[in-house]
């Protein structure tokens, strides 16, 4: 590829179920769609997690404009409009028809296969074949020149991928097919898909939470992906607990070194400075102080356990990015905040 032609980056976002794959994939697409850029956000699980995030209609099975990308903040490019984010729900049946039409070049044979339930077989019964089709379509979307009239090309493609438990199988389905097919056009296609997925233009990001089991699954997935020669790039820590109490203070709270009487005194000062319009329901009593200290201790303990998990993730030697826990479900505004966080990290490069 000539040096002046930037390659389409393929970002694969995976993670344990519910960790925040769709959220991170969507935020990453927004972050990558800076001024003048066009990004495609793909979903393959048929769950419509993305349209839910954008509070919009379900994604279609053809590429369609979804929203605009992030507008640059203060600094370079202020005032320029953001780029374009397109979205696509990759449907295995549509992908199969496209695939068959490409390899058979004849309508009747495709129709005959359809009549015999091949489409149904391939897409619902044999999930491995479904994965072949889905990754094949993603591959096709990353090409710098694409088949079909009016087909768009993208600066980046972001894939909201299956969860960690299945992602290696998903991404290597074409390698398996290449093994089964041994030769012919199917094998060539399968080999090209694998070359792209394993190539330098692909980056896999794992979304994790700071919980033992999720981190364990992340660590396992990293080694599984690495031994399948797939390019793992970064880990996104999602829903990180905010630091509300400086470490040193938190430690003395947890150690019981803070005297309840002192807290009570300071509190009554605080509540008398700010009786405000909302007023204080009742003067803070020692019961309240006790609650504060107990919850403070629990918060500290949770943060400590999270830090143990952070250390395990640091040990992977990958880029780490954190997104804060947001109270309540993630709406489009929060998503843009997350996109801004990501655009400042290395994963968006």
């Amino acid at each position, binding site marked *: 590829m000539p040096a002046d032609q930037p390659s389409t980056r393929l970002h694969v976002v995976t993670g344990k179920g*519910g960790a925040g794959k769709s959220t991170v994939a969507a935020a990453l697409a927004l972050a990558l769609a800076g001024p003048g850029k066009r990004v495609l956000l793909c979903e393959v699980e048929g769950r419509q997690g993305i349209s839910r995030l954008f509070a919009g209609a379900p994604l279609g099975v053809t590429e369609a404009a979804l929203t605009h990308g992030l507008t640059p903040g203060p600094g370079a490019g202020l005032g320029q409009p953001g780029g374009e984010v397109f979205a696509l729900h990759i449907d295995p049946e549509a992908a199969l028809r496209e695939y068959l039409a490409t390899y058979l070049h004849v309508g009747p044979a495709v129709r005959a296969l359809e009549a015999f339930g091949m489409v149904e077989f391939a897409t619902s019964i044999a*999930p491995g074949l479904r994965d072949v089709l889905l990754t094949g379509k993603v591959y096709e979307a990353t090409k710098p020149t694409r088949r079909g009239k009016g087909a768009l090309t993208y600066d980046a493609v972001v894939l909201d991928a299956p969860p960690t438990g299945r992602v290696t199988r998903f991404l290597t389905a074409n390698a398996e097919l290449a093994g*089964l097919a041994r030769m012919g056009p199917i094998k060539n296609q399968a080999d090209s898909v694998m070359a792209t997925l394993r190539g330098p233009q692909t980056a896999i990001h794992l979304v994790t939470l700071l919980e033992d089991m999720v981190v364990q699954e992340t660590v396992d997935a990293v080694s599984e992906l690495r031994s399948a020669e797939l390019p793992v790039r970064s880990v996104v820590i999602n829903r990180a607990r905010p630091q509300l109490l400086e470490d040193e203070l938190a430690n003395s709270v947890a150690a019981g070194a803070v005297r309840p009487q002192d*807290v009570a005194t300071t509190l009554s000062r*605080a509540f008398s400075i700010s009786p405000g319009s909302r007023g204080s329901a009742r003067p803070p009593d020692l019961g309240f102080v006790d609650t504060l200290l107990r919850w403070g201790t629990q918060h500290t303990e949770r943060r400590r*356990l999270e830090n143990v998990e952070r250390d395990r993730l640091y040990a992977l030697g990958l880029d780490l990015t954190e997104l804060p826990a947001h109270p309540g479900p993630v709406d489009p505004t929060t998503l843009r905040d997350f996109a801004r966080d990501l655009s400042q990290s290395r994963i968006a490069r």
Partner: protein
Amino acid sequence: MTSRPRLDVDALLDDPQTKIVVCCGSGGVGKTTTAAALALRAAERGRRVVVLTIDPAKRLAQSLGIEALDNTPRTVRGLRQDPGRGSGSLAATMLDMKSTFDEVVVSQATPDKARQILGNPFYIALSTSFAGTQEYMAMEKLGQLHTQATAEGTYDLIVVDTPPSRSALDFLDAPERLSAFLDGRFIRLLMAPARGPARLLGSGISMVTHAMSTILGSHVLEDMQTFVAALDTVFGGFRQRAARTYSLLQAPGTAFVVVATPERDALDEASYFLNRLGEEQMPLAGVIVNRMTELEGGEVVTVEQALDAAAALGSAGSQADRSARVCAGLLKVYADRVATATTQLQYREDFRTAHDGVPMASVPALISDVHDLDGLRMVGELLAKGSPKSGRKTPAKDPTKPKR
């Protein structure tokens, strides 16, 4: 008016008519933990229990003594029997999808045929690396355990965990999908040479086989045909067993427990399960809302008041003394917790309103994860008293405190 029935876990587990408990729910909500906790509680209350777990966390598997994938239930030691309730027992196993599949093949086919199937590339792909197989096999394993329990009287209660599948009731659809697969025209097409004159299938056949050979190469077609033909003989039996397991799930001795966390998505998913279970006429015991943020009756001031007070302390400036900084931080922690708990309660109430009359129980979020018998026992206790009304007085001992 909404009724607020409470899921009475002990009544469910103590009822000798309860033979199977299935824990389902979306990914990561606590299905495995709940299944293990219910199983332990039932065993300590005198039942002879086996729990089938699916991909348990490593440390939990270790403490149950099932880290080796050998597909046989292992006796769990360290139970604390409830005196006066007879002697219960607990065995645990972890689903091994590949060997479960192999066992079915071996038990159904002649040795020759079995060898042929086990070595076929399509079989290997299907049994090891294709998604969805886990669901088929979970149901197969449940059927096996049930047969064993009935025949040998080894267990009187089976607690089943379910895989974190895409839509988590895939295990219900798995047998159906398998039957559809075996009965489908495409399969008949693949088996055409084995089953007589191809022209019976109509004129499309030669075009189709030609097309497939072009795409796949003829040896692939052969492998596939061998595979399908071999499977057909074996899986006639499998299909019957899957159908039997399905009706077992509908039987009155079965109780489904839907697990969710108090978040919008997990509860949406739980709603979907409730509807599906209703449609399939599967008996529902109730919903467990796991990992609730507890207020322990400690809410004294509102979130806004706490944040105002924290701000007032902060605005004392850089010379703010240590005590002010401690208090401001504690108030922020307080506000964060009250805000989270309030949102969660709201979600739970909305859910309850939408599913009037469905029994519910709640389990508070513990500080550390649940990875040993003590932890499971605690979850079981909290479950048993976890009335969703939650107006509970602060317990004498804080259950959310980690053990050191």
